[in-house]
């Protein structure tokens, strides 16, 4: 990271302390921070010059040689269009499962979506999908968010959506579940 970018960030923090939440502050440090702020003045670091995936659906050709994990991560960020946020609120423990629509259209989905559909034949959490696909959490959240918006996966209710502590009913359910283990 260049010092110019850091300075720019610091300035932003000082400029609007009131309207910035802790979340905004942390998100300012996320992968696409440079991209968001190019309009300002800060130079774009070379690292973030990842090619952005085109919007229209294109078949993804799997290379025959095995990729290094880093290469696949970079590619993954490319097909999320460099985004690190999703419109759908997914916690790491949120369960997703494939539905009839995704099973029927499995043949025409892009490769990553197909992998998700295969994985989620039985319900999986966001964390499990990330672990089993060996992709960073942020990428998987964007991927699953896109798929949910297109109706390809069902997102199940999470007990504590939005960071609020789980309610008493769920606490009771957890307790009696643990007692049965």
């Amino acid at each position, binding site marked *: 990271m260049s010092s110019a970018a850091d300075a720019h960030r610091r300035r932003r923090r000082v400029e609007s302390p009131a309207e910035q939440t802790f979340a905004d502050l*942390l998100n300012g440090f996320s992968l696409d921070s440079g991209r968001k702020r190019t309009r300002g003045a800060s130079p774009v670091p070379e690292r973030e010059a990842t090619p952005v995936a085109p919007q229209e659906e294109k078949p993804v050709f799997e290379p025959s040689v095995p990729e290094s994990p880093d290469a696949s991560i970079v590619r993954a960020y490319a097909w999320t269009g460099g985004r690190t946020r999703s419109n759908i609120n997914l916690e790491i423990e949120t369960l997703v499962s494939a539905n009839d629509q995704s099973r029927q259209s499995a043949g025409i989905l892009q490769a990553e979506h197909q992998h998700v559909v295969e994985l989620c034949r039985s319900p999986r959490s966001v964390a499990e999908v990330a672990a089993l696909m060996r992709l960073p959490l942020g990428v998987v*959240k964007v991927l699953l968010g896109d798929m949910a918006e297109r109706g390809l996966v069902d997102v199940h209710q999470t007990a504590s959506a939005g960071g609020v502590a789980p309610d008493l009913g769920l606490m009771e359910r957890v307790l009696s579940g643990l007692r049965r283990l």
Partner: protein
Amino acid sequence: MDYVGSRFPDFGPPGPPGRELTSAKIVVAGGFGVGKSTFIRTIVENDLLTMTALPPERAGLVTELVRIQFGRVWLDPGLALHLFVAPQWQDPRAGWNDVVRGAVGAVVLFDVMRPADSVDAMRYFEDHRIPYVLALNNVHASVRSDVKAIIRGMGIAPEVPVVNCDPRVRLSVRETLISLAEHAKLDRWRRRPGPDETTPLAPVC
């Protein structure tokens, strides 16, 4: 690439398909080598999975991924409980917020020989008002009450349960989780009106 199966059996919910599903999580924290992974493995009876996340302050560097281990167990036909190992404390914010936000509560495994890491974790949970239990990693019965007295003397809230736990023993892990769930339930009940909820935690991408 074969993502499916291998290493992680396909154990779906025991209930009929189409049933409403939900999930909850518990965080297991503590110093290095105190038995966090063992604790989880003992109760989920499966290999743990490892998820990666980019810590916020190093997000530009793809190589600096935080690894977060976890396991999952179905508590009833519609409820999946996830148990996450809190990432090491050296990098306090790295991956913690995503793991901790909305958790039922936390188990802090406490190694009497190396208390510092556990104390940091306890402080974090107290600051974020996340209910936790302190699980003494297999302290011998003869000194248990002394150790508990010392820990109480460190100034943790009196309602925080302090239990003895052997992370290798299923019954012991189960008891620890039950005491956490009881404490968390009570804690939630006490704060029913909740005028100011927990500080919202930012997602880590």
